[in-house]
């Protein structure tokens, strides 16, 4: 686990990094189909 954490910016947990990675899949899928929305959806 420590080796994984060494690749992450300070203060970020593995769980929060995984959430961002998963969110990126769905928000990119939204933008690629509808044309807009993914960038705003991943921000809040």
């Amino acid at each position, binding site marked *: 686990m420590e080796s994984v954490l060494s690749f992450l910016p300070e203060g970020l947990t593995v769980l929060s990094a995984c959430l*961002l990675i998963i969110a990126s899949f769905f928000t990119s899928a939204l933008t690629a189909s509808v*044309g807009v929305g993914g960038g705003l959806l991943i921000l809040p």
Partner: protein
Amino acid sequence: MTYIVPIAALIPVHGLVQLGSNTSRSYVQRDNIDWKIVRLFLFGSIFGALAGPMLVVQLPSSILKALLGLFILAVIWAKLPKIENPSPIFVSLGGLITTFATMFVGATGPLVAVFLSRVFSEHRKMVATHGMTMTVQHLLKVSAFIFAGFAFWEWVPLILLIVVSGFFGTKAGSTILNKMPEQKLKLGFKIVMTLVALDLLRAWFL
């Protein structure tokens, strides 16, 4: 992202993630990009970016956001005619005005999308061309942050994973785009744009 990424890194990291995501979209949907529109739009954008810092807008950002929200709602739901074969000046002016406006309001994606939705009658071409204009705009944004001294290196491994995940999301979304009927795609666009506009209007009441 706001809850996970420290506030000082939020906008630069979001910009780099968006650069990756829009580059993926432009690559996957490259056959549908209208390069003439991209060139003209970006030509106007340069002047919009240069004009922004020279003018001071006195209105608070909440009012500007609300006005943008109302504008999006009006353009999306009013029965306006499509502007087929727009003149080069019209497209460049669109680039100038939207780039200028987003410097004060943000929401660059929806604002450019609302403009391009009037130019393209085919949803697929609009989405692909929008992806390319957003790629260049975010490239400029990220370059500005690098120039200003933001250290992206600490974020690179995570951003790479986010971009790879986004690439597969883009592939999935593009499959939906190619399989869904045009009318349903346009309805989906209207619904998402309406939600974006309502979110911008919310700033007025908070």
